[in-house]
């Protein structure tokens, strides 16, 4: 059972690599090296701040775009092209297929993030000519970004299990944007009254709280991240992704593959 999930995950990763998804790293490298050179010339004392902000934001955005655009096709493309028929006619359970696809995409994003992280550190070294202890905090920000990817992947898979790729992309991207302002939504819910209070509270807790994962600015200012936040975010991401994946499995388990 576990091996079948691993085989499906490894094939999903291979597909991403062969479909040249990792080519985005070239665009990322160009963007970051260009920015580092430019920043090195025009900014005084804040080069490091700019490079960390720009680098980590780019890591997050590139990853989210990949997560959404691959994630939305993971199930629907297999149904449309009928590649699924020869997989599900084997001793593969539908949930194994969904979970395998999720891990395959998550693996792709982790590898992608790893190479991007090298790029961020290289740019940082270029502008500051040395590493300091506080730079290790960047790893925490990268970890949070990966957790964010897990949630986005699971949401893209959830939408992909019942709607068209286009609608799935719209849903997933909208949730990402709304989730990035989840704290504001919670504040609004706190101020609202009556029905709108309940509706806003419900929405605020239903959408993924991506704002809790955004520690880029504080890390750029070398402010440490509390261990409690790391634990909280980890549990939240695992729980949210598991819920979204369960939803995807539940829908897919009952879907006719016409």
């Amino acid at each position, binding site marked *: 059972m576990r091996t079948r999930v691993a085989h499906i995950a490894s094939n999903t990763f*291979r597909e991403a690599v062969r479909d040249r998804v990792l080519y985005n790293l070239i665009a990322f490298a160009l963007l970051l090296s260009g920015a580092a050179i430019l920043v090195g010339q025009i900014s005084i004392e804040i080069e490091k701040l700019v490079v960390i902000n720009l680098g980590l934001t780019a890591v997050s955005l590139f990853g989210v775009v990949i997560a959404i655009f691959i994630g939305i096709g993971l199930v629907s493309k297999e149904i449309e092209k*009928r590649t699924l028929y*020869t997989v599900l*006619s084997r001793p593969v359970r539908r949930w194994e297929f969904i979970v395998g696809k999720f891990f395959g995409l998550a693996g792709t994003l982790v590898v992608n993030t790893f190479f991007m992280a090298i790029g961020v550190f290289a740019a940082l070294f270029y502008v500051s000519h040395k590493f300091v202890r506080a730079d290790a905090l960047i790893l925490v920000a990268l970890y949070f970004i990966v957790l964010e990817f897990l949630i986005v992947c699971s949401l893209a898979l959830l939408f992909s299990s019942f709607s068209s790729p286009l609608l799935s992309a719209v849903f997933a991207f909208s949730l990402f944007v709304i989730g990035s302002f989840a704290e504001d939504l919670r504040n609004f819910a706190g101020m609202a009254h009556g029905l709108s209070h309940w509706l806003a509270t419900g929405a605020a807790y239903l959408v993924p709280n991506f704002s809790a994962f955004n520690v880029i600015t504080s890390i750029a200012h070398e402010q440490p991240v509390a261990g409690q936040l790391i634990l909280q975010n980890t549990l939240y991401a695992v729980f949210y992704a598991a819920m979204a994946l369960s939803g995807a499995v539940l829908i897919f388990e009952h879907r006719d593959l016409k």
Partner: protein
Amino acid sequence: MPAIEILGLEKIYSVGFWRKRPKRALHPLELTVEDGEIFGFLGPNGAGKTTTLKLLMGLVFPTAGSARILGREWTDPSVKAQIGFLPEQPYFYDYLTAHELLEYYGQLSGVPGKHRKQRVEQVLQQVGLRGVQGVQLRKFSKGMLQRVGIGQAILHQPKLVFFDEPMSGLDPMGRREVRDLMEQLKHEGKTVFFSTHILSDAETLCDRVAIIHQGELRGVGAVEDLTSSVQGKVEVIWQGTQVPASIKALGAECHVTADRVRAIVAENQQDAVIDILRRERQRLIAITPVRTSLEAYFVEKLRRAETTAGSTV
């Protein structure tokens, strides 16, 4: 123990976006396929053949009914380790090579790692795809993909193989090879269930066939029973270019092609025709009973079904 027992499987889809309405794809189907036989599932396009196969594979869910495959409930996941399936017009992960694809399917089917590589080589040779190492499937022709499809269906040495239109996209040589492969599978004691609308293939290969039309089973039986002799007629063939007047007088249907004459006469006139040919010093080549072809049986069944449907409207 039968290889397949279909017990009233039925499928009704909901169609339409806004106001859903039911569309029956398969009427309750009762069918038994015996172990070790080649069974043909015949019907025109849209008859319900693929729906039946998808139901048996668990790709779509039945509205009612059930099935047993190799003595177990068809939903039992362990059954799938013992069946192979070739979908109609198969499409595979085109970024993989044939080796990688079969390796992957071998992993999913639980083929042990130490035998897998060897088995992949063996299957590729069996389906005529040796020497395609390193070529991604996106560069394969339709016929080559069909061969890959057949390969993946037999890779894990299943006891029961389902082929949906296996001859589709193949040239005459390819079709011949697939026929040979099916006979080989039968020889190995495996059961083959295949859907087709190419009746000559079914007639050549199948022990038994079922005919389905508009989602309803119209007939099932052994090929030789369905194509038994009709109205006691025989076909007489002799060398020559002329039909003697005395044979014409017997009311024979005669056709002259090149240096041969074919005449269809009643069985009780067979001796009279032979006497005439002997008298006229013609060289007799063959006398065979006229049988209904599977095609004629098939067309007659479909016509009858359409007439019944027309009269009930």
